[in-house]
């Protein structure tokens, strides 16, 4: 019966109830949208980095990640490769010859990371072949080079132009090779576009004067969430002078950012919650003041304070629940649309690119965060009703009955 009264009281001042309901709905939508949007952005940052060059797991000779020197090639990579391929959960492996070097055109030059790859293998761990804006992916022929749009602009080269790549050899002398630009790629990271070039592995080995040596295994697993277990397996399989690094080891700041973001969600919930609480306090107080006389009567006929309190809180709770459900449904529709279409932010794409996100954000639902919002909103409406309910039960019955 308390529930019935609470429900009818909500229907009593429809306009006011709809306003409160609207603010709850808006709060829920804002929370969920912000959350899925940020979550999608974070995920895309990670996904872009991982799928262009980081991969899930990298294997080097110990120390190579921090200091890419030519002498630190992977010793006996053939046997290592067959061991890696026996580990369960590994999907594909690409062998890379990696060096730091200089690339020059007729007009300009720039420091770059040189990726010597086997084109077919590299395709299996990277989306670089899908990121070409102009030209073709490496065909397997020699003296082909792919570079980023930003770097091409800087060097002032286009398809078919010649560039010279240079790098230190083990003995300290300089190796150099001439390449012809066959492909220009564009990625969501301007940093990557400016500093990475792709050439055939054999050309890289010749330039470094390291016959048949490689420097990195880039590994893609079946599920990026399981990399830690696979890392453990690889460490036990491989010699001790190898280093095995997951994308979490390789992108520590991004991972910290993502963790930090979980806390941001809490803060945003608190801010939205605070705004909601004040809205609820305000409207519930109004509705309590309008009913002072009624509360007086309820008290006179012996209704306990506890029940009066409960009735007012129930009113807010009903609104909270309905608002959350409505907000959730609307959010799901928005989410469902945007998850496939994405949110086109090309107008901000310059700054987004420097974050490595890309111009189109695909919101992603994180169930944990969703639950948090869905549970916290009704709780918040209840919190907002506490003070008005307290006000109501503090009324003196005599005063309340006389009140008109």
């Amino acid at each position: 019966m308390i529930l019935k009264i609470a429900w009818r009281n909500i229907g009593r001042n429809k306009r006011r109830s709809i306003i409160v309901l609207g603010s709850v709905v808006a709060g829920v939508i804002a929370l969920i949208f912000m959350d899925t949007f940020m979550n999608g952005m974070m995920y895309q940052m990670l996904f872009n980095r991982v799928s262009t060059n980081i991969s899930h797991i990298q294997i080097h000779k110990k120390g190579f990640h921090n200091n890419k020197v030519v002498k630190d090639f992977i010793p006996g990579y053939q046997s290592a490769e067959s061991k890696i391929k026996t580990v369960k959960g590994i999907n594909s492996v690409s062998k890379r010859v990696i060096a730091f070097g200089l690339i020059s055109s007729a007009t300009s030059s720039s420091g770059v990371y040189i990726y010597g790859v086997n084109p077919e293998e590299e395709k299996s761990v990277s989306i670089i072949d899908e990121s070409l804006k102009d030209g073709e992916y490496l065909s397997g022929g020699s003296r082909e080079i792919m570079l980023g749009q930003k770097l091409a602009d800087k060097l002032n080269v286009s398809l078919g132009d010649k560039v010279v790549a240079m790098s230190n050899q083990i003995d300290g002398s300089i190796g150099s090779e001439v390449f012809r630009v066959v492909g220009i790629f564009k990625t969501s990271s301007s940093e990557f576009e400016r500093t990475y070039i792709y050439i055939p592995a054999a050309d890289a080995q010749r330039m470094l004067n390291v016959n048949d040596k490689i420097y990195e295994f880039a590994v893609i697993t079946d599920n990026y969430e399981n990399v830690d277990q696979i890392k453990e397996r690889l460490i036990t399989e491989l010699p001790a002078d190898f280093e095995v690094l997951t994308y979490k080891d390789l992108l520590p700041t991004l991972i910290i950012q993502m963790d930090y973001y979980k806390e941001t969600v809490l803060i945003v919930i608190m801010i939205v919650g605070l705004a909601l609480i004040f809205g609820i306090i305000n409207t519930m107080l109004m509705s309590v003041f309008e009913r002072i006389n009624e509360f007086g009567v309820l008290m006179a006929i012996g209704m306990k304070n506890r029940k009066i309190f409960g009735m007012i809180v129930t009113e807010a709770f009903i609104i909270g629940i309905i608002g959350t459900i409505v907000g959730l449904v609307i959010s799901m529709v928005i989410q469902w649309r945007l998850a496939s279409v994405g949110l086109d932010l090309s107008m901000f794409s310059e700054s987004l690119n420097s974050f490595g996100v890309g111009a189109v954000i695909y919101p992603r639902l994180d169930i944990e965060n969703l639950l948090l919002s869905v549970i916290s909103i009704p709780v918040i409406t209840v919190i907002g009703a506490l003070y008005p309910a307290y006000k109501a039960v503090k009324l003196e019955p005599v005063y309340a009955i006389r009140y008109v």
Partner: protein
Amino acid sequence: MEIIRTEKLEKIYQDNGVPVKALDDVDLTINTGDYVVIAGPSGSGKTTLLNLIGALDKPTSGKIFFESEDISKKTKKELSEIRLNKLGFIFQAYNLIPVLTAIENIEFSMMLLGVPEKERTERALAIMDELEIKELADKRPNEMSGGQQQRVAVARAIVNNPTIVLADEPTANLDSKTGSNLLDLMEQMNKEKNITFVFSSHDKQVIERAKRLIILKDGRIE
């Protein structure tokens, strides 16, 4: 049997810091089956006295015995318990719960007492039958006339078989014919069921029908 006895009852209000003596040295006894009218000019303290008898307020000094128990020092919670179990109220402005229908209003006070739903409905229907308001069962207060609302209020007040029913100017908002009908009804309840009624009023009709008349003037019984 004695239901209520007051001893040197005094109530002083603070009106913006100015003390207003609303009741002064009131000694009064009400017995089972009484049909008492408290009369007196406006401001004489009728409502104040009813509120004290009705366990809605506490006296400044003096004692109120309700069934031989001093209630003047009881906590709010205890008073609320007494009101729920022993008292019925009828107000000048009917004061039904606007979002509930007539029958729900009557059931409400039984609900507060924890009467099971089935019994609630049965008892509500029975009392409505008695007061000839059965056809109002599903109407909300704003769909009823003042007289009809006040009948429902009477039903609400007596449905829990209270020890005493207090009615503060129950006819003040009704025309004299409707008021007279309502008084017939309460008189009948008093006779048939031996329900004790205490009214406050300055309505001539009410005063004429009083079995016992208490006249207040400036907070004192004359």
